[in-house]
């Protein structure tokens, strides 16, 4: 479950007041809104990359408002994938597991499993340079799933991709969410993505969120 309660965020040219969202466990929610509406800021607050002026962030039953990003148990896929420039795909996927100091064979098995699942097994020894947009997003997704998070946050993951590649990734995201039984909050400004993926559709507008699922 992802729950944010009365989040307030002020920046010099931007204001968000008392925003609340509730995404039940195992659901796929899509948060829509125009460019500059504050969608990415909201995701960063949930990730712990920004601290809100007031309000609470709860993941599951845990209040994580003041927790460091690394202990929140979530996976984050930014817009362009934000792959680590000097690491191979294998290194990227295994990164979270290495940080947890898991045994090498366990890391190897998990990396291979995720690479097969996301269709990038043939790319494991490649570095990010030269990967296509779709491949980069698949790597970013596999990397985010490696530590088995209960929550997945996606920040416009399909926005730079052509329609065919988008379709492939939409199927992958649906399958991933189903198989991992993960709670997803997917930010987009595309109605097409929202209709294809969102069990819950939310709209961020004028600094507040409303449910537009029906």
């Amino acid at each position, binding site marked *: 479950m992802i729950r944010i309660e009365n989040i307030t965020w002020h920046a010099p040219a931007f204001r968000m007041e008392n925003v609340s969202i509730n995404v039940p466990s195992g659901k796929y929610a899509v948060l829509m809104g125009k460019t500059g509406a504050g969608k990415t800021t909201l995701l960063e607050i949930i990730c712990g990359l920004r601290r809100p002026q007031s309000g609470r962030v709860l993941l599951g039953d845990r209040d994580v408002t003041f927790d460091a990003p690394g202990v929140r148990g979530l996976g984050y896929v930014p817009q362009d994938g*934000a792959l680590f420039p000097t690491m191979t795909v294998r290194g990227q996927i295994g990164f979270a597991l290495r940080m947890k100091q898991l045994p090498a064979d366990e890391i190897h098995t998990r990396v291979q499993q995720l690479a097969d699942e996301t269709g990038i097994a043939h790319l494991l020894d490649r570095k990010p340079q030269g990967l296509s947009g779709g491949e980069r997003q698949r790597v970013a997704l596999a990397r*985010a799933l490696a530590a088995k998070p209960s929550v997945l946050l996606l920040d416009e993951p399909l926005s730079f991709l052509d329609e065919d590649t988008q379709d492939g990734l939409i199927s992958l995201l649906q399958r991933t969410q189903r198989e991992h039984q993960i709670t997803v909050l997917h930010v987009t400004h595309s109605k097409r993505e929202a209709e294809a993926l969102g069990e819950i559709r939310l709209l961020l507008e004028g600094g507040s969120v409303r449910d537009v699922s029906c």
Partner: protein
Amino acid sequence: MNKSFWIVLALICAAYLAFWGALVVTTATFTTPLEMWKVLVSREIQYSTVLSLITCTVSALLSVIIAVPIGYLMSRRRFPGHALVDAALDIPIVLPPMVVGICLLMFFQTKFGQGIESVVPVTYTVGAVVLAQVVIAAAFAIRTMRGVFDHLASRPEDVAMTLGCTRWQAVWHVTLPSARRGMFAAGSIAWARSLGEFGPVLVFAGATRMKTEVLPTSVFLAWSAGELQQGVAVSLLMIAISMIVLMAIRMTGERA
């Protein structure tokens, strides 16, 4: 049309390099191979060459160690007085080098400076050569590293933090490996700047033969004694050393 554009740029580049080549060749005509050989085998010049190489390398390493955290801070964090700190970091670049030497000398005359001297003698020692080089070279390295971090996206570091890293770990595992070439560039600039440093070294470390004499000091001493050929020979030696070392650093950096 497009071709003429590139031809004009190439001509400007060629003219600049040709002028530089002419300067070196003209300088070389003021000495002879025999004089060059005599300079190369003289104990004093061998000492100043080795001291230059060692002090420049130490200064370049220290400059990068200083430049990486400061460059990162200035690039990634806005804080009250940021612009003021930014300007202050450039002071060693705009100050006449001799003034930096005088400032160092004066600092070590204060009670605090004397306290340091009583534990580790600095003024007129090899330590003074390194310190005089670092004070200026670090400013150039900081400027370079700030530019490097400005061009590196911070998002991968954010992602690393969501994957279980602390900020320190994210910088260490993700940002610094990406900044490796930039660090080589900063080190090269600091090294080259240190090799040519003369004013602060002369004021703060002195020009004692076989003690604090680095290559620019050798040129100055030869010139002061009216030994034109020796001065020219040492100058050519400096050009050769700087070209070889900088090319080696660049090649290593490109492989990194």
